[in-house]
């Protein structure tokens, strides 16, 4: 059998196996084809850092409440020497972690972590929120305010047809209408929009509509410092409703209800509160598995579900690398793009993961230029090759350290990410580029450098695309398909795009 037929047969076999498993997962076990945000599990973290000075410390923080329709799992507390108590409030459904310690010193860190599935606008409110209540006037600071509140709320009631329109009118008056005297007078000293939401809640409750102010996070993107968002939840005319002052997010998660701050601390200074969010994994596999397919071999063999979460996260990155490599093979064999090193661009692309694209390209270019400068300077010292490489490497480390310190003092996150930027790749790039620079020309070196950067950017975009990540992670059998495509490209004998340009004179000759 000749090698071309052999290759094709092998590729066909791999394609067949890969697609067979893929389609059996999709058709038989109902694996979804797109990353469904509703089934994304989020890693949630509250990170508290503060200075203590030998005085008794008490720190209270709200942690995600457990209630029907919301899933909070794998809770972990990092207490250090602190004592921990969990408080659950029956009425509001809030949960609090209370950390105490009598004689703490220096900087201390406390952490709470959990995994949670978010809520959406369709998530039902608890039954306690659905009971029609008696109309009642809330407690007010002064009689004058109380009078004003009563007058204003009965005015709103008069101007509306039913509970539904009453709620809408109230929210419109508080959030949209300008300079409503009553609103200005009745708003408490709480920060906006909490004060506005609280006033709206008071009005609704006074008219017998169950309502509460919810505080939590929007689950839209991985963040190290998620902002606390506030919204109003109420139940009117048999319907659960939510009002978001800043537009409704697709997914969110309520941490606690009421107007308190997320953290209350006693006896500490320089308190820093960070709320971190990160997509942990796709729960779709879990759903598929729980549907009774756990024992079937194709599902079991070709999935990462049995691995611990941390290992899964590593593989989530790893399985996308072949996608970048497939792209690189295409760009080299069909387009004829020139790059420094064979797989270097894909490695650079992986490095961009740590920095995001624009920052990555900027840092990469900057460091390469700096490294090249040093290398050309060293050229004059007549050093041996390997020690010279070593000096460049040390210089790159120093540059990175310098950046990190600069950025950290500027309060940027950039600094944190650069420390993970693989410097060996950078050094090798610099060395290769300088050889090309000397042996060929500056033009050629820059051309290849830019080519590498372009491939790196494209492969980064491909490797980090959520759909690609999801497909490769959920269906690792697609690796066989990628392998088959690479095999087939290995037998491509046609001209490259760049060769059309190279031989353009030969083509033109016939005309």
């Amino acid at each position, binding site marked *: 059998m000749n090698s071309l037929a052999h290759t094709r047969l092998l590729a066909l076999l791999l394609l067949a196996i890969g697609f067979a498993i893929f389609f059996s997962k999709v058709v038989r076990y109902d694996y979804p084809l797109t990353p469904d945000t509703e089934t994304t599990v989020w890693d949630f973290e509250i990170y508290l850092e503060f200075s203590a000075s030998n005085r008794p410390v008490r720190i209270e923080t709200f942690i995600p409440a457990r209630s029907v329709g919301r899933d909070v799992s794998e809770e972990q507390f990092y207490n250090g020497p602190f004592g921990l108590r969990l408080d659950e409030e029956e009425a509001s459904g809030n949960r609090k972690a209370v950390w105490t310690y009598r004689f703490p010193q220096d900087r201390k860190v406390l952490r709470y972590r959990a995994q949670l599935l978010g809520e959406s606008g369709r998530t039902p409110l608890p039954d306690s929120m659905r009971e029609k209540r008696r109309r009642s006037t809330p407690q007010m600071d002064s009689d004058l305010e109380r009078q004003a509140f009563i007058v204003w709320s009965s005015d709103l009631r008069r101007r509306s047809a039913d509970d539904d329109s009453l709620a809408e009118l109230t929210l419109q008056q508080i959030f949209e209408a300008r300079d409503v005297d009553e609103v200005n007078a009745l708003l408490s000293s709480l920060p906006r929009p909490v004060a506005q939401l609280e006033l709206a809640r008071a009005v609704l409750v006074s008219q017998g509509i169950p309502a509460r102010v919810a505080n939590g996070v929007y689950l839209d993107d991985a963040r190290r410092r998620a902002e606390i968002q506030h919204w109003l939840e109420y139940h009117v005319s048999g319907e659960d409703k939510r009002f978001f002052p800043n537009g409704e997010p697709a997914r969110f998660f309520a941490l606690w209800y009421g107007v308190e701050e997320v953290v209350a601390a006693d006896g500490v200074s320089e308190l820093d509160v960070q709320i971190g969010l990160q997509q942990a994994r796709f729960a779709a596999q879990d759903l598929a598995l729980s549907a009774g397919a756990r024992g079937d071999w194709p599902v079991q063999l070709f999935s990462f579900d049995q691995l611990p979460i941390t290992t899964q996260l590593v593989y989530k990155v790893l399985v996308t690398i072949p996608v970048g490599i497939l792209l690189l093979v295409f760009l080299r064999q069909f387009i004829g793009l020139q790059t420094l090193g064979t797989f270097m661009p894909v490695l650079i692309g992986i490095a961009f993961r740590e920095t995001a694209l624009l920052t990555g390209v900027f840092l990469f270019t900057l460091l390469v230029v700096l490294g090249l400068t040093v290398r050309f300077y060293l050229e004059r010292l*007549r050093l*041996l090759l390997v020690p010279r490489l070593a000096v460049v490497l040390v210089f790159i480390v120093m540059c990175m350290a310098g950046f990190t310190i600069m950025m950290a003092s500027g309060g940027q996150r950039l600094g944190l990410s650069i420390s993970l930027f693989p410097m060996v790749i950078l050094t090798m790039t610099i060395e290769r580029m300088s050889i090309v620079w000397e042996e060929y020309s500056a033009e050629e070196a820059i051309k290849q450098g830019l080519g590498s950067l372009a491939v790196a950017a494209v492969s980064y975009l491909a490797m980090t695309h959520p759909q690609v990540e999801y497909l490769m992670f959920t269906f690792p059998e697609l690796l066989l398909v990628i392998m088959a495509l690479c095999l087939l490209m290995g037998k491509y*004998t046609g001209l490259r795009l760049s*060769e059309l340009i190279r031989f353009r004179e030969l083509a033109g000759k*016939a005309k």
Partner: protein
Amino acid sequence: MIGSILDLRRRGVMGLNERNVLLVNEFNPRRLIRLVNDKTVTKRLAAEAGIPTPELYGTISNAFDMRRLTDLISAPDGAVIKPANGAQGNGILVIAEKVQSGWRLASGRRLTYEDIKFHTNNILSGMHSLSGQPDTAMVEARVRFDDVFSDVSFQGVPDIRVIVLRGLPLVAMVRLPTAASDGKANLHKGGVGVGLDLATGLTQLGMQNGKMIDSHPDTAHALSGIQVPHWDEMLLMAARAYDVTGLGYLGADIVLDREKGPLLLELNARPGISIQIANRAGLKPHVDAALAADIEGLDASARVERAKAIYRDVVGEPGAPDAAEETAKSAAA
């Protein structure tokens, strides 16, 4: 664009992909490629088979050998330092003569002992070698090249590249150094490639940087119509290189010394495809014809005769060039 793809296909122009899959992978097993990557090995094999090469003064592979550097490069006729595993003419230093403060290069630059030692050390640490592995520097006699191409070259050494498939010389070209290529004959550095009629050894038209040209960019002399001396001997050397190495697809680089005649400089297991522009024709028809030929039991000189006949078949008689070439010539005149 589609049109130009079809046009190039029709003319039998081969790309790198096709060269790699159809020729290199098919005819050059990896273990044989090793023989031509290391030029000291190539030299030894050639010597055993009686193929003349430039005289090897010595090799330097460690700091101990380095003490001989001065002696090796101080030959009265000059010397050439090159990496044994170098590629594409990288890392080659052509020393013309010893002068007061050091050495003068063929390009006119002056270098001190320190400069040359640094260069040699770079070679040893693998800067110019194919895989970055530690390498050996070789010092060999500088070729006193024949005057036949002096009208159409600018400094440096012109060389002749013959592509050989299954021991059959396929196509050939002359590579001429230019001012732009810094005295080197490499096409990708701006050297001029001139197509050769394989049957006669007469030069035809040329190319530089992928563009067709009729005269040398520096000397303005016409490129065509020069008879390469010792032509049959060169073809025989190229054909024998196949017997020596076993490489089914190779490029033989030959220089013409004033006194010693043709010398084999090096062999290449992955010769480039720019020769198609120099010859203004695709390789594919030549390859197909050579693959179809029955050469069982033929010795090198018989293969050369067969190759000439095959070339004539593919290209046609020199007296009847195709119409496009005719117009190109009249336009040049």
